[in-house]
């Protein structure tokens, strides 16, 4: 019994101690997570005594936490949805949206695939399930296996809005839980096509040049083309926070936007906004 009591005491004191030291809480998108972790690590090293807790879980989780006040900053790989905006408004929060980095999405295929370039219209056809064979887009007679991220990920939404022009994905599209799984599957499936963040690019897969002007110019995905905004499939990554606590979170946000912070963005594999 004594043991249980003392264990309980230790547990409570730990909880209390944890609650006291938690400075800024950052929560949300798993895409932004590695970036925020790196930023927090370096920031805490430079500012002794500062404390930042970074938690993943997904953009939706982060924004839900922002609504109920359990996080200070929500990380997100998509902009706010209408119902989230309404809920934030109801909760009396005036939200500031900060772009912290850019993420370019590469369209990848198996290295054995002779296709080098695709237009937006062709990509739309493939992902809505209307184009099912590579020969329809200038390749070999081979069935197309299209891989996508899960319907709830910010990456999926982005592809849907910008590549499919808000049309729905076809039902035969394979949804993978993580970007790593897409790379693995595309590398071992001959007829595969997928999309991944530029940072995840590997030698086992081949990036496709894309054209968003009907086939006039095909752009190769790279840091340079993403930065000068010629590469069309580039999306911003966000931090959201309540304007009321701006003083509290500003040091961290400013650090992320500083020259040093933006260098870390490039280190993690995303594209600096400046």
């Amino acid at each position, binding site marked *: 019994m004594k043991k249980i009591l003392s264990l309980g005491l230790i547990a409570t004191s730990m909880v209390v101690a944890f609650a006291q030291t938690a400075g800024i809480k950052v929560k949300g998108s798993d895409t932004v997570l590695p970036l925020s972790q790196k930023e927090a690590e370096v920031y805490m090293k430079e500012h002794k005594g500062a404390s930042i807790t970074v938690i993943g879980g997904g953009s939706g989780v982060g924004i839900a936490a922002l609504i109920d006040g359990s996080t200070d900053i929500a990380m997100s790989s998509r902009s706010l949805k209408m119902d989230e905006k309404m809920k934030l408004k109801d909760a009396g929060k005036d939200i500031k949206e900060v772009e912290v980095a850019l993420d370019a999405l590469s369209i990848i295929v198996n290295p054995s695939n002779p296709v080098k370039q695709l237009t937006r219209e062709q990509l739309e056809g493939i992902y809505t399930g209307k184009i099912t064979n590579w020969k329809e887009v200038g390749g070999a007679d081979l069935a197309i296996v299209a891989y996508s991220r899960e319907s709830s990920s910010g990456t999926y939404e982005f592809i849907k809005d910008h590549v499919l022009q808000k049309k729905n994905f076809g*039902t035969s599209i394979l949804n993978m839980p993580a970007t790593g799984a897409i790379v693995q599957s595309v590398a071992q499936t001959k007829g595969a096509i997928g999309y991944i963040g530029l940072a995840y690019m590997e030698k086992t897969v081949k990036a496709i040049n894309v054209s968003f002007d009907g086939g006039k110019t095909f752009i190769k995905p790279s840091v340079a083309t993403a930065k000068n905004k010629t590469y069309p499939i580039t999306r911003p990554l966000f931090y959201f926070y309540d304007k009321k606590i701006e003083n509290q979170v500003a040091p961290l946000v400013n650090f992320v936007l500083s020259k040093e912070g933006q260098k870390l963005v490039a280190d993690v594999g995303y594209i600096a906004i400046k």
Partner: protein
Amino acid sequence: MLKKIINKIIEGFIKTSGWVSSIIVLLIIIFLFKEATGLFTKSPLEEGYVLVVNKKNPIDKLSPDQLKNVFDRDSTSWKTLGGMNAPIEIFTVEDISTFYNDSMIGANMENLPWCINDHIAKTENVISYFPEKYLPKNFEGKIMHLDNVSVYQFLKNKIWLPSARPVAQVGALPLIISTLLVSLVAILIALPIGLAAAIYLAEVADSRIRTFLKPVIELLAGIPSVVYGFFGLVIIVPFIQKIFSLPVGETGLTGSIILAIMALPTIITVAEDALRTVPKAMKEASLALGATHWQTIYKVMIPYASSGITAAAILGIGRAVGETMVALMVTGNANNFTFSLLKPIRTIPATIAAELGEASYGGMHFKALFALGCILFLITLVINVYVEYLSGKKTK
């Protein structure tokens, strides 16, 4: 005296633990069903938006299916939906600048509601959806109301696209079928192997081999499922793809094979226990009548232990039905409505695990995932009740 008090305290502690855990389970179930029922009391239209057509449009109601076709540009004429003979024109707020110039919209978009109203009133074949806050006060179009999703539709519809806009598509049928199919095939693979292993352990193996094999099999149950999943993705997926020369190796069968391996320890342990409960007298009577060891096993022991073996199989199915990580990694997660084992499919647990993190809290998608959770809960509940019933029969 002190001992008595300590005993009383321990007794109380045990009692409260029992009660607390039962209550927690109950609360979780209540929470699950409460969130899930929300799906059926909400309009499937994206929250905060309105769906409008021109006043003269004769159509009052469109089903979620029809709306999906409209916004995917698969239906292009009102005629196919039972309306006028005119093409469907989709108008979104982003298009407003192609119809009205900046000075008409206003610097702070203060005239936006007016512009929207004007455009919809002028265009007879228009359909549009936009945030409710842009809805003008004296709106001259027709606001469409959508029926709530019914339980029947949820179970019957074949399209699962809960993040579709403007109308969520929540058809759970392909997910339910895939889940049951994958688990059933997994058990068909696992049961013969598991039963053979159980007979070997209970009857054939000598005690030295058994003391070695038993912990090894139990170790199988201790391997994290993500390890199984990765093993499947790297080894089984290319293997299946090659053998059946498929375009893609992530299929229901791949999932079944790995789930079968994962269900083995459960099946072996429970079936072996069942075989061990066969009374010695019965076995010896059979042997004394001149039956061989094998005849005794399949004519006397297996029939006697049959209810226990069935329980083993069903518990194995239960294990497979609820398995998340493996299904997520190797079945491809495509919303195919199919009974084929060689196509990518998507199971309920994988869907919940993959989508819950990013769904907006309390929204349509979120609630649809909880409703899926309810279905999964009911499936496992039926399985467990059946196992209880079987083991109750055995003691009689």
